[in-house]
């Protein structure tokens, strides 16, 4: 296996220097805030994602957690890609990331949509690591639903 295809420089860089790490209170007190804590039961990795939104724009996507380089870099990329985006646009990015990760390396990512997320193309070839990359994104989906955007609350994982 080519270790470099999994651990691309971009991923290692986000892991060593994470962007936007730490859970933050909403800057605008009128914002809806939703939070979700997800764990990967097979390895014990944990992440908490918090979304602050006025229902239209995601004012902040903050996070904290502990885990492997893939899950932590993925959270950093998630923050970078979705903070400040319109909600519907954010879910398009979310969808594109899910499609990339379920593609077993056969999906060519669009850098205009996924930005640094394209670096996870190699991860999709390692079924054991796909869950690591998806952990923050799944937590984001639940956090967003709790903040009143995206999925209906009935779909939210406990």
């Amino acid at each position, binding site marked *: *296996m080519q*270790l470099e295809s*999994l*651990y691309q420089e971009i991923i*290692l860089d986000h*892991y060593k220097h994470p962007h936007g790490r730490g859970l933050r209170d909403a800057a605008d007190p009128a914002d809806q805030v939703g939070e979700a804590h997800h764990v990967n039961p*097979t*390895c*014990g*990795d*944990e992440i908490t994602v918090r979304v602050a939104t006025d229902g239209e724009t995601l004012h902040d996507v903050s996070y904290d957690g*502990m*885990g*492997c*380089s*893939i899950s*932590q870099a993925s959270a950093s990329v998630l923050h970078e890609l979705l903070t400040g985006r319109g909600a519907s646009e954010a879910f398009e990015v979310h969808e594109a990331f899910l499609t990339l990760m379920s593609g077993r390396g056969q999906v060519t990512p669009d850098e205009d949509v996924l930005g640094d997320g394209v670096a996870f193309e190699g991860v999709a070839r*390692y079924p054991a*690591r796909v869950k*690591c990359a998806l952990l923050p994104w799944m937590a984001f989906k639940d956090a967003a639903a709790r903040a009143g955007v995206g999925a209906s609350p009935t779909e939210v994982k406990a």
Partner: protein
Amino acid sequence: MTTIAIPPGMPQYDDVPRYDVAAVRADFPILGREINGHPLVYLDSANTSHKPRQVLDVLAAHYARHNANVSRSVHTLGTEATEAYEGARAKIARFVNAPSVDEVVFTKNSTEAINVVAYAFSNASLRPDGDPRFRLGPGDEIVISEMEHHSNIVPWQLLAERTGATLRWFPVTDQGRLDESGLTDLVNERTKIVSLVHMSNILGTVNATSRITARVREVGALLLLDCSQSVPHMPIDVVDLDADFIVFTGHKMCGPTGIGVLWGRGELLAAMPPVFGGGSMIETVAMGGSTYAPPPARFEAGTPPIAEAVALGAAVDYLTGVGMRAIQWHEKELTAYALDALATVPGLRIFGPEVPVGRGGTISFALGDVHPHDVGQVLDSLGVQVRVGHHCARPVCTRFGVPATTRASFYLYTTTEEIDALVAGLEQARKVFG
């Protein structure tokens, strides 16, 4: 390594039984594989062991030549299958020195074996005529430890929920040993069962059980030992061990998956109500009620894993042929070698005993701040297979303040060269993530 001169007349270093590791390796077809362009370095035998040709041949031959259901057919194939199945039981009984072959109950694995005992407790608690040793209620206590595998935690938590009994546990010391300082308080007149791991699957600690056994006898409780990690690696004698139940699993001892063992003292098994109902476990069945077969059949409802049991018998033959004392010694030497070698890796922290005494060949560690998933991935790229995660022993990780560990575990076919490959791989991981 330090050399110590042993005085003449004492057992000498060269007296210990040994075997040819290269010859043993040649028996395991999978060890010839390459992984990611490197020779396979399999350091995950605590998870599951590999199977020698001798076991694979017996498994295939059973289906090719002797396949039939057991204990219910008068025809030739049925007789052959029954003899092979019961013959395997006898081999396993001899392997752990069980006083009677009827004390060996086949299960799916250790987990199922522990659950059988736990459910026997709750079933006995529901029956007015249940044996008092198995009756549990509010005020009664179950004792486990902080170093258990989830399979020796959750069944007892569920039993405590069902019966109202209280679950208590031995803590673990900083060195990864069982903390017995509270023994007399922890195991007391209210204790009904103590269920402990014999060798920890994560720390590698081998628990000395005699003090605990003495206390268990004093208060009239029962003792179950989870021997999943000890039966494959050292000679086990249930008479010597003086437990009431032991459990172990076939796939960790060169046998197939899907077959495990519950050994129990004959009179205790006879006092236990059934757990699974169905064919084979009955004496007579009427629409108004049924009576049950004596052990071990009472606990083996339905068609059992026949070929797997027969192959486990072959695994026991194989291990006996190599010699359990020799395997234990080989692993002791490997463990001493590995502890020394790992100590040379900067930033490496071992969880569990750091001396090759009172421990087996299973070593968990952290490599600085590098996450175990990442360590495991780099090692895999070099053909080195280790386990990463919480090893189904999350309370141990919590105890040592880490979400996960990297674990290397050895077996009879492991070599010092493989440990060198591990150490070299760890250097590589430090380079990528340092």
